[in-house]
């Protein structure tokens, strides 16, 4: 397990990322993957107040919402980084959204999926050496946008 800090934000380098929607993917073996939101996506949303997620058994398509996140002044979709069927929903995170912010890459995971096209869709995610560079670019973008505290 490798966590590095990029511009003040923790990043797990063994995960893959959809950095447009700030979702991470951990491959658990076979087609099973775990999905959550990265620390930068959470920071720019504000303090989480509510999480809603689809039910187990729901089929989701890559790029489509599997739930929504609501903060004090923001509401937005949780976007699936891969297509698949929802195998599990983290009920603890739904009950206590603060868990997602305190441990985004661990206990704050959101759903587990059986990915329907892992081989085909994996290439759309950012992984390996590219993670740190791309993550740093997003931090710069958000600083310019004014959504990060100074």
């Amino acid at each position, binding site marked *: 397990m490798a966590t590095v800090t990029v511009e003040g934000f923790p990043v797990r380098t063994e995960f893959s990322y959809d950095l447009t929607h700030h979702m991470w993917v951990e491959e658990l073996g076979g087609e099973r993957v775990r999905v959550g939101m990265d620390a930068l996506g959470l*920071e720019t949303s504000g303090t989480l*107040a509510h999480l809603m997620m689809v039910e187990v058994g729901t089929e989701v398509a890559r790029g489509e919402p599997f739930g929504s996140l609501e903060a*004090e002044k*923001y509401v937005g979709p949780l976007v699936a980084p891969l297509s698949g069927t929802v195998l599990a929903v983290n009920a603890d995170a739904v009950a206590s959204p603060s868990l997602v912010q305190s441990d985004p890459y661990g206990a704050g995971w959101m759903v587990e999926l059986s990915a329907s096209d892992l081989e085909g869709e994996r290439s759309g995610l950012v992984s390996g050496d590219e993670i740190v560079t791309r993550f740093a670019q997003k931090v710069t973008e958000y600083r310019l946008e004014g959504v990060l*505290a100074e």
Partner: protein
Amino acid sequence: MTTTTTPRRLLPLVEPEDRRESPDWVRISMASALALRMRSGRFARPFEFGGINLLLNYASGCRSDCSYCGLARTRPGTYEDKSFIRVEWPLVRTDELVGRMARYEDRLTRLCISMVTHGRAFPDTVEITERIRARVSTPLSILVAPPTLDRNRLEIFKAAGVDMIGIGLDAVTEDLFRHHRTDVPSGGGLSWEQYWEVVDAARDVFGPWKVNCHTLVGLGETDEDMIDLFCRLAERQIFSYLFSFNPEPDSRLGDRPKAPLHRWRRIQLARHLIEDEGFGRDRFRFDDDGNLVAILGPVDDDVVERAVASGIPFMTNGCPGPSGEPGCTRPFGSYRPSEPVRDYPWPPTPDDLRRIREEMRLWEVYPPAVERRR
């Protein structure tokens, strides 16, 4: 041999929460914290926001115990942990805040200090006003705590550079005021008469359209009560600022539902017609229970439809910015981001207007032109 060592006493590195009081510390709205980049986050819909709201902070809290307020004395929890208007108000150093205001002054539209009912509220508000005025020229309002004030103190506010005064009447009739704010479990109640004395004094000191009364829809008032007050205030060139009751969890009114959306929209429209289009009390009809049943617009000039189409009646009522534009817009102040917008902090888009028309069901109280001419 056993030795006992006395632990070395260290000075605290961080000032304890209970010492972080005004005037050196203030709370700010979460929207203000985002605008001044004191907190990370974004709004559900991007828009220009520059209305900064400050709230005095005391460890002993507000002395009032209003039934609907997050800061009420008998609401469970310590004052430090209490939310206000349902969300956290970050506690910040006043001087750091003023520095941020100065840095971002070009995008600020209105500043407002909210007093609380506390013995130190008046001198501390003057002190904070002076610190702001020394570095920032954005128009500054004060939402006053009438029990701490008299005419002389209002004059001191004006001399310090305050241009508008708000009075949080909230309850629009004397009976409702007594029920929610005077006959309260703790802290001593507030006085309807005293609130109006301060309204009168503020109107004298600050002049026409420089005073506003906050009115809260959903405390048990009728439409007629609301519209009567709008008319009385407009006659005196005092603004009515509308707020939608939003139940504060664990407050005495924590289980009370909000006003239905159709009612809220019609009241927004009525307030606009009275204040901006000169409608009088005789333009509105009510049933025996005080519900609005008809708006009587001129037959040959569809001012009501024009007002709706402009979207302006449904925008946040608040003190203006330097050029008269909406300055204090309180985004998501009385609704969650996932709920229908109650008062729009941005000009409503065509999609917003379509939704507003559906929510308002105006045809029930204002039939189409063809039917009105019959």
